């Protein structure tokens, strides 16, 4: 019964886990806010050109992307090394762009449709021939506001 006999016979109480949910939630929120959901897996290799006069793409929901570049290693057996276009998750030809733009436009509200931007993510070693073709298709489908995605120099 003296002061020094505490340890005898009593079990250690379990560590409180009451705050664990808080931590988990916080991590969850963190990832939700900070990560931009990558909706597409890139099938092409893209090294963006660098530039200084950049403007940011503010509203992600209004942006549709067009990727152009050399197919990745694992696809080179099938598609070769010539630069190709990727829309969403699949390979495309220049002729598919108009349909893609129309589909993207349909998916937005009417009020947002004229604010839409097309972001061109094109590898810097691509030849201009394919880029010009894409631009012509975009003009035909009246998607005139474009953004040449590039890195800060």
């Amino acid at each position, binding site marked *: 019964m003296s002061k020094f006999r505490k340890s005898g016979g009593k079990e250690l109480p379990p560590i409180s886990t009451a705050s664990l949910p808080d931590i988990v939630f916080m991590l969850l929120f963190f990832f939700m806010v900070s990560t931009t959901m990558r909706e597409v897996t890139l099938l092409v290799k893209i090294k963006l050109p660098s530039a200084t006069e950049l403007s940011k793409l503010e509203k992600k929901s209004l942006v549709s992307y067009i990727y152009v570049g050399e197919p990745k290693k694992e696809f080179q057996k099938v598609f070769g090394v010539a630069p190709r276009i990727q829309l969403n998750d699949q390979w495309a030809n220049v002729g598919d762009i108009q349909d893609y733009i129309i589909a993207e436009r349909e998916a937005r509200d009417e009020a947002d449709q004229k604010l839409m931007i097309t972001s061109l993510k094109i590898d810097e070693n691509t030849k201009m021939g394919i880029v*010009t073709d894409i631009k012509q298709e975009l003009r035909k489908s009246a998607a005139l506001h474009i953004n040449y995605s590039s890195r800060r120099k």
Partner: protein
Amino acid sequence: MARKTPEVPAASLADIAFMLLIFFLVTTTMDVDSGLERRLPQWQEQQPEDDQQIKERNVFVVLVNRNNDLLVEGEITRIDDLREKAKEFMLNPNNEDNLPEKEPMEVPFFGQVNVTKGVISLRNDLDTKYGTYIAVQNELVGAINELREDLAKSKFGKSYADLERDQQKAIKMIIPSRISEAEPKKAK
């Protein structure tokens, strides 16, 4: 009677978690998509013939060939010099005969101003590298942005980005961004 052992204090867990949060916030770089913003011209069913003749002195011709060399107004130029040349073309400070004409215009905030009629024409080859094309575009856009910035500084004493919308509009009227892109020649 058996004394209850005190619970492990959970108060500091929140601090640890916050520290983790701040650590992640500081270390991760959220890559913001950014790039050169341009507007394409409207599509026309039949290609317009060059009916509106633009005088030669009003056109700043930039050609990029398949070897990524630049020909600016008939001279071989390096990309580094392009910005200065474009600025000189758009301003025409000494009213020279071979640089673009100016046309008096009524602009809010400024009154009567001589506005340049200059147009930058960019033509590239089908085999030009995209990287070069962007570099050229970047210099041209940069030249116009710098001119606007200078004008904003001298007139309003503020950066162009900080101006009111109608002030920006006035500056845009004085220094228009007219970059026209000719289609590359298809014939091979």
